[in-house]
C-alpha cells in the first residue's frame, strides 16, 4: 500500500516536472525563433493623460533620493505627473528625505502612514490609491531608478483597450557586487528577456510584477483594491486582471534598474516572502482563473502553471524523499519505469536544466559573453532556491491552518549606484 502510494506520488511529480520542463523549452524556442510581438513603445503621443506614480517605502534612506530624482527627471509632461512616495512606518531618515524633495518639487506629495496599524506594500498602496485621481497609476519600488523616457513608454501600453496592466523589464544595477548578485542578474535575464517575452509572444499570461509597471485605476477599483493581508499584490492583480478579461502587456524595452539583494540572508527573506505571498494568491485564485470563460484552454493552462510555480520546489523535494524511501524499501529496481522516473527527477534536481537553458539564451540575447561561464553555479543556487521556496510554502500552509496574518519582511538595501 505504502509502496503504491509512493510510486503514484513519484509518477505525479515526474509528470509535473516534465510539463514545466517542456514549458521552459517552448518559451526559449519562442524567444529564439518565433516572431516577436511588439509593444507600444514606438507610439508617440503629445496629449498624455494625468499620471500618478506610487513608491511605497519602508526604511529606504539609502535609495529614496535616487528614486525620486529619477522619477522627476522624466520627460513626462510636468503638469500631468504626480509622484506619491509612501512612507510606510519607516524609522530611519526616509521621511526627512521625502520632505526635502517635496519642498523642492511640487509634483512630489509624500504620504506618511505612521500611526496606521498595519505595515506592508498592499496596505500602503490601498491607502494611497484612495486619493488618486488619474486614470493610470504606475508603481515603482524604492530601489528603482526609471530612465527619462520610461514613464511615457509604460503609459503608452494603455492605448490598447484590452490592457489592464503593464510590466517593464527589471535590470539589476549592482550585478558586479557578489556571486549572488551575478546569479540574480542571470535569473532576472531569463525571467524577463525569455520567460515574460515568450509569454507575451505566445499570447499567454505575462505577469504584472509590481515594481516597474502600472495599471488602470478604474480596473483596480473594480477589483476592490489589494488584499490587505497579501504579500504578493502583483500576482494577485495579475490573476484578477485575467479573470476579468483584461491582459497584462509586457514591454521588454521598458527597462529599469533595480538593486538585487547582495547577501544570501536578504535573498532568503525575499524569496521566502514571495513564496508565502504567491501561494496565498494561488489558493484564492486557482479555481477562479482555471474556469475563467474569457481565457482560452492554453491560457488557462498557463495560468495554472503560473499560480502553481511556487508549489513545484516543495513538490520536487517530496519527490526526492519518496524516491529515497522506495530505494530504501528495495522497490527501485535497476531497470524499470521508476528508474526512468528517478533519472528525470535527478535531471530536475540539480539546477533544472530547462531554466538554465532559458537563462543562457537570455544572456546571449543580451549580448553577454564570459558571464555564461557562471551558468554551472545556478545548479548550486537551485537547491537554495528550492529550500527557501519550500520554507515559504510551509509558512503559507501554517498561515492557512492557524489563520495567521503574515508580516512583510523587508528586503535589505545597500544603496548601490549604477
Amino acid at each position, binding site marked *: 500500500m505504502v509502496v503504491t502510494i509512493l510510486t503514484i506520488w513519484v509518477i505525479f511529480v515526474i509528470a509535473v516536472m516534465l510539463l514545466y520542463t517542456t514549458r521552459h523549452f517552448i518559451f526559449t524556442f519562442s524567444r529564439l525563433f518565433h*516572431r516577436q510581438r511588439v509593444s507600444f513603445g514606438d507610439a508617440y503621443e503629445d496629449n498624455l493623460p494625468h499620471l500618478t506614480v506610487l513608491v511605497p517605502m519602508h526604511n529606504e534612506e539609502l535609495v529614496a533620493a535616487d528614486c525620486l530624482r529619477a522619477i522627476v527627471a522624466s520627460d513626462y509632461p510636468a503638469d500631468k505627473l504626480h509622484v506619491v512616495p509612501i512612507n510606510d512606518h519607516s524609522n530611519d531618515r526616509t521621511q526627512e528625505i521625502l520632505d526635502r524633495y517635496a519642498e523642492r518639487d511640487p509634483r512630489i506629495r509624500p504620504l506618511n502612514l505612521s500611526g496606521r496599524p498595519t505595515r506592508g506594500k498592499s496596505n500602503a498602496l490601498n491607502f494611497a490609491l484612495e486619493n488618486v485621481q488619474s486614470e493610470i497609476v504606475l508603481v515603482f519600488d524604492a530601489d528603482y531608478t526609471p*530612465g*527619462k523616457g520610461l514613464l511615457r513608454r509604460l503609459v503608452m501600453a494603455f492605448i490598447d*483597450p484590452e490592457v489592464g496592466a503593464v510590466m517593464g523589464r527589471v535590470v539589476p544595477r549592482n550585478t*558586479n557586487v557578489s*556571486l549572488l548578485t551575478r546569479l540574480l542578474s542571470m535569473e532576472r535575464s531569463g525571467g524577463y528577456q525569455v520567460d515574460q517575452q515568450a509569454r507575451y509572444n505566445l499570447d499567454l499570461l505575462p505577469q504584472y510584477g509590481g515594481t516597474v509597471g502600472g495599471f488602470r485605476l478604474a480596473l483596480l477599483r473594480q477589483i476592490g483594491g489589494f488584499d490587505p493581508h497579501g504579500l504578493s499584490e502583483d500576482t494577485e492583480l495579475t490573476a484578477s486582471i485575467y479573470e476579468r478579461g483584461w491582459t497584462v502587456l509586457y514591454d521588454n524595452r521598458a527597462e529599469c*534598474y533595480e538593486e538585487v539583494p547582495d547577501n544570501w540572508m536578504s535573498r532568503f527573506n525575499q524569496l521566502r516572502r514571495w513564496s508565502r505571498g504567491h501561494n496565498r494568491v494561488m489558493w484564492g485564485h486557482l479555481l477562479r482563473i482555471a474556469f475563467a470563460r474569457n481565457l482560452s484552454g492554453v491560457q488557462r493552462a498557463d495560468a495554472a502553471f503560473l499560480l502553481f510555480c511556487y508549489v513545484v520546489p516543495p513538490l520536487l523535494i517530496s519527490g526526492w524523499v519518496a524516491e529515497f524511501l522506495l530505494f530504501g524499501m528495495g522497490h527501485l529496481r535497476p531497470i524499470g519505469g521508476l528508474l526512468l522516473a528517478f533519472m528525470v527527477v535527478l535531471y530536475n534536481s540539480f539546477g533544472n536544466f530547462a531554466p538554465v537553458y532559458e537563462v543562457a539564451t537570455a544572456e546571449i540575447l543580451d549580448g553577454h*559573453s564570459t558571464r555564461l561561464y557562471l551558468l554551472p553555479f545556478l545548479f548550486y543556487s537551485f537547491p537554495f532556491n528550492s529550500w527557501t521556496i519550500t520554507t515559504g510554502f510551509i509558512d503559507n500552509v501554517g498561515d492557512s491552518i492557524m489563520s495567521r496574518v503574515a508580516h512583510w519582511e523587508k528586503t535589505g538595501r545597500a544603496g548601490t549606484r549604477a
Partner: protein
Amino acid sequence: MLKPISPVLRTVTLFAVAAALVVVFFALFYSNGSAGPEQRLDTAIAALAIVAGFAALVFLPMLPGLLELRRSADATSLTIDQNYSRDPRYMGKSFREKISNVLQSAPMHTRMPFLNRSKEYGRIVPSLNLDDGENWTDAVLSKGAVTTGKRVHLVDLYAQGDVRIGAGSTLRALAADGDVQLESNVSVIRWIDGEKDVRVGPNANLGHSLSAVGAVELGNNVRFSRICGNPVVVGQPRVDRRGPAPDAGSWPLGNKRKTATTTVTIGRGESVETDLVTRSNVEVLEGGVVKGSIKGDDVIVGPNAVVYGNVVARGDVMVRDGGAIRGHVFAEGSVFLSRDSVVGSAGRSKTLYSSRNVELADGATVFGWVICEGDGTTVSTSPG
C-alpha cells in the same frame, strides 16, 4: 568590488573536504575488520580517488566561472540609456548640433575633418548650387538655400534655408531649416529632417526616416519606413471635412467595454459609445461611429466611418475611402489607408504602426507618425 570566494563556495568546499575525510576515516577503520593495514590503506586510497573524481566532476564545470569571478570580464549590468527620450526628430536635431559644433566657426569653404570619420570632411558654404551629375563627397553646412540639378550625389547636408534636390539624385542625410522639395526618383540612404514642409516627388526612396515639423506631401510610389509630419499626406493636403473629433483633446481611455469572441460588426450609420475587444474581427460599416477604442484580429473601418479611439489589431487594418481613426493605429499585420482616409486629427499627433507593410492611397492623411517594419508605399493617382 567582487569577492572572489563567496561564503557559499567556502561552505561547499568545507563540506567537500569534510566528506572526503569521513570517507577516508570509514575506509581506514570500518571497511573490513579482518583486513590488514595495507588492504585498509588500499581501500582508503580507492575511496579517496572516488571522492576526488566525484569532486572533480562537480567542480570542473565551475572552473571557467571561478576565473570569470576573479577577472570579472563581463560583470557590468546591462546598459540602459537613462537619458533616452522618444523624439521622432532625434536624428535631425542631433546632426544639426554635431555639424554646427564642427563647422559653425570654420572659415567659409575650408575643409574640416568631420565626425571623427576617416576620410570624411565637412565644409561651410553660404549657399549651394550643384549642376547635373555633380558628386559632392563632403558634408555641408549651408547658411542659405541648396539647389541641385539632376542625378547629383550628396552625403550629409545641413541647410539653413530651403532645399530642392533634383530628379534621380542620391543623398545620405539631410537636415533643413526651410522647406524641402525632392523631385522624382530621389533616393535617401539614411534620413531627412525638415523644420518646415517636405514635398516628395514620385518614385522616391526615403531611407530610414523622414520627419518634419510641417506637412509631408508624398507622390506616387514613394517607399518609406518611418515618416513623421503634421500631417503626412499622399498628394495634396485635404481639408478634413469631418472637422476635429469631439473628444480630440482627451486621452481615449474608455471605462465602458464590450468583449466578444466572435466578429463584431457596427452597422451602417450605427453609433456605439464603448471600447470593443474581441478575439475575432471587427468591421465598422459605412458611416458607422465608434466612440471608443477597438481591439481585434482584422479591423475594417468602412467608408466615411469614424473611430474616435485607438485601433489595435492582431492582424490587418483597413480604412476604406473617407474613413477615419482619430486615435493610434497598431497592427501586427499590414495597414491599408484608402482614398481620403485619415488617422489622427489636426493638432493631435498619433502613431500608425505596422509590423508588416503600410500602403497609403491618394489623399490618405496621417497626423503624426507612420512606422512600418516591412515595406511602406504610396499609391497615388494624382499628378506629381
